[in-house]
């Protein structure tokens, strides 16, 4: 018998049943959702805020909000996308509180093209495990992403760290698809430029 699954049956995400049970007050079902997503929510919050204590608070607040507003979740999007959206909003709010003078929002149009136009054309092909200890590589990657404006960092985190699609990222951030693509391009190019400085030096590439 050929092991081919029928394409006609539409797959229902397992979260749908858990959310339905949680809505009826089943705490165990909600706890399972927490177990599934606590790491992701913590990671997203830490990437955006760059602060572990803030990320811990945000993770708690995001789940509490989700729990309280569970009835409002219509199931038009995935539960995880809805949850991430709550966490992103909480994270941006936290950044706003921290930097009272600077407005931090996803609508903020970063006018500067700084770092978004490639300037460094040196080839690099690091084999990070060979070139750096895990600790040093982690430091480089953290420092590099820290330097991105929060809006770009947020888009990059969802799209390239969490592997969201462009459409899911747009939905989670309340942005249009073109806006996500434009921020993503600039985020990737800025990171590339910054990483180039580290890896080119180590691999002995040409110095301008």
């Amino acid at each position, binding site marked *: 018998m050929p092991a081919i699954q029928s394409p006609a049956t539409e797959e229902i995400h397992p979260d749908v049943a858990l959310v339905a049970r949680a809505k009826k*007050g089943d*705490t165990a079902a*909600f*706890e399972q959702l*927490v*177990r599934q997503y*606590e*790491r992701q929510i*913590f*990671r997203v919050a*830490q*990437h955006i805020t760059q602060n*572990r204590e803030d990320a*811990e608070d945000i*993770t*708690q607040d995001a*789940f*509490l909000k989700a*729990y*309280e507003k569970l009835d409002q979740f219509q199931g038009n999007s995935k539960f995880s996308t809805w949850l991430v959206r709550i966490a992103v909003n909480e994270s941006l709010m936290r950044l706003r509180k921290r930097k009272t003078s600077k407005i931090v929002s996803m609508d903020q149009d970063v006018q500067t093209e700084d770092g978004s136009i*490639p300037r460094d*054309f*040196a*080839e*690099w*092909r*690091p084999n*990070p495990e060979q070139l750096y200890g895990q600790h040093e*590589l*982690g430091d480089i*990657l*953290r420092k590099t*992403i820290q330097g991105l404006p929060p809006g770009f960092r947020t888009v*990059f985190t969802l799209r*390239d*760290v969490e*592997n969201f699609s*462009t459409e899911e990222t747009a939905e989670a951030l309340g942005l249009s698809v073109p806006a996500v*693509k434009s921020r*993503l*391009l600039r985020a*990737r*190019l800025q*990171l*590339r430029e910054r*990483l*180039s400085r580290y890896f080119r030096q180590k691999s002995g590439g040409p110095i301008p």
Partner: protein
Amino acid sequence: MTCTDFLKQLTDYFDGQVEPELLAEVQTHVRECHHCEVVLDTTRQTISIYREHEIYEFPAELRERLHAAIMKKCTGAR
């Protein structure tokens, strides 16, 4: 195709969403422009480095503490 045109297609290129006619132009440009070839290659590496490395730790102790705090907040809420 100019380098600026190429950059505009970069995101769609990584997603395999460039229209077929345009794709040929992108590929020709990359073959002929060394700078864009490097940008393409190193941007691809940038993405994969971040995809493959968990840069923030999430030790079991933190997870348990956080999990307990979440459940305490939520079950006390209703």
